[in-house]
């Protein structure tokens, strides 16, 4: 009981001292009761994906951005029960930003500056990132999420575009909600009161198709909810 208490409450000197002994609680008794605290998220977070292809003239072109988070949220809007599929990218958004931010500046700029017509293979990307900074597991952590999103992007773009895709990338878009004091406005006023969204765009990644079940699943979901 004492262990659960120390693991659950906000960190304090007592729980810091005991943290080494509390490992056994995870995973089964792992819990976090932050629930919109200390400060609730106050921005909409969307994951967008895009593909690149070579057109007939040999120029590099990009497909339109697909706001995948909006597609997912179709299973929440106007529903009494929010389907879990509606929260996938929202839940991963934080981890995508954190694992990217955890790397050294040199690694971050390497991860972003990749070529659309010939993106690096995953092995090459991992090798160049580990060369540019300390290899302390942070690169692996980043690539785990990055690769998963590349897989998702590959399936989504394949479902939307008939082009021969050479690379995919994603963007993390954040936009603050309507300010508290502006909540009484008309719908147009409220939209206008929101600050401009910010976008962090990833580097180009090699198309990474998942298993057939996954590609079909994403395509079917897209058809139903786009």
């Amino acid at each position: 009981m004492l262990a659960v208490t120390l693991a659950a409450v906000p960190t304090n000197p007592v729980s810091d001292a005991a943290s080494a002994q509390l490992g056994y609680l995870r995973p089964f008794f792992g819990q976090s009761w932050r629930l919109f605290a200390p400060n609730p998220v106050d921005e909409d977070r969307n994951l967008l994906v895009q593909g690149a292809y070579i057109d007939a003239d040999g120029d590099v072109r990009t497909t339109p951005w697909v706001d995948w988070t909006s597609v997912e949220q179709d299973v929440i809007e106007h529903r009494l029960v929010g389907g879990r599929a509606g929260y996938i990218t929202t839940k991963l958004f934080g981890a995508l930003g954190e694992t990217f931010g955890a790397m050294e500046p040199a690694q971050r700029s390497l991860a972003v500056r990749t070529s659309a017509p010939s993106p690096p293979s995953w092995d090459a990307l991992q090798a160049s990132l580990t060369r540019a900074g300390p290899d302390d597991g942070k690169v692996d952590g980043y690539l785990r999420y990055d690769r998963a999103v590349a897989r998702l992007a590959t399936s989504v773009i394949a479902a939307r575009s008939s082009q021969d895709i050479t690379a995919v990338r994603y963007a993390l878009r954040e936009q603050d909600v309507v300010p508290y004091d502006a909540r009484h406005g008309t719908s147009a006023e409220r939209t206008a009161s929101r600050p401009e969204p910010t976008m962090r765009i990833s580097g180009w990644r090699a198309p990474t198709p998942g298993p057939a079940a996954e590609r079909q699943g994403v395509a079917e979901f897209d058809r139903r909810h786009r």
Partner: protein
Amino acid sequence: MSHVLTQPDTEEPSREEEPTSAVGRGLDVLTHWYDVAQTWLMCDKHSMYGASFARILSGCAVLGILITNFRQRDLLFGPGSVWNKERADANFYWPPDLVNAMGSTEFLFFYLGVIGLAVLWVLGWHARIVGPLMLLGNVAIIERIPILGDQGDNILRVGLFILMFMHTTEYWSLDAKRRRRTRAAQIVRHGGSGRNVRAVVRNLYNSHPVLPRWLSNGIHNITVAALIFQLVIIYISAGMFKTQGDLWQHGTALYYPLQLQEYKPFPFLTDIFTHFGIMVGVATYVVVFTQLFFPLLLIVSVATRRIAISIVLLFHASIAVMMALPWFSLEMVAFDTIFVSGTTYVAFGNWVKRRGVALGDLWYDLTSPLRRRPKPSRAH
């Protein structure tokens, strides 16, 4: 066990005859509380109505999650999940290994199997066997990609685990029916071990008690205490986290999550609530203070306990409707049932029964040309 049976009151006269030292009086107090604790722990099972109701609601939460995500099961938890490979590499649980290698069809049967187990758990059919299997199946599916879950999954997992050690089938269960229908096989001291083993197995199968009463009471009551403690910790720590935040102190914190696109299924409903600043402020503070003082409100008096439980129910109902998170709410509420006393359950049951009679009558009135009313006259 003699301590348990000795009423402290009966010792009073002898204690007054000879004056005792401070140490002696201290020891008396200690013995008294030891007796009280032992009596509470071993003489009777507590919160059996709450435990039975928790069984039903927790089963409904499992059912709700699995059924409403049925169509996206492959995409979320199954072979079609974009995250399965990545997360499988970093998985923390062994149960998901059960489903990791499954294809769509196997996973479909597994999924349906867990739904079936959850139905049986709600009905209280062989709960001692069905319960652990359902918990295992549920964890295997839901926790395969933990990042997609919410805190409701945590309390469901921990709460169900604790429920497995409780006697959850005293009321509203098929196990209770079977117990009434069958008779417990007797264990005879010199009856031969084969016969006794058969008797134990039969009692297990028929949901009759197998362990000595003091032991089964003790296990049940300790786990009741553990569940209560777990819930109290949730509320206190959630409250403590909130007091660290400026927006919670300003009384506007509730506004922000409600503005997020994923928590705004019915924008007009959200707009009505957030239109009135006073409502947002009061609700924000009520949430913080109820969470912080939850244990205190539980023990001060029956009235404060009812207030605390009502507030908790109200805000979970609001989360369910305004944020489209009914299963999260149900997962939280399912275990709060342990705080409600047996008397309340009986009163509530009677109220439902009375309403049930009226509804039944209405049904027979409406369909009277089609069927005959089985009971021609009512009690009053």
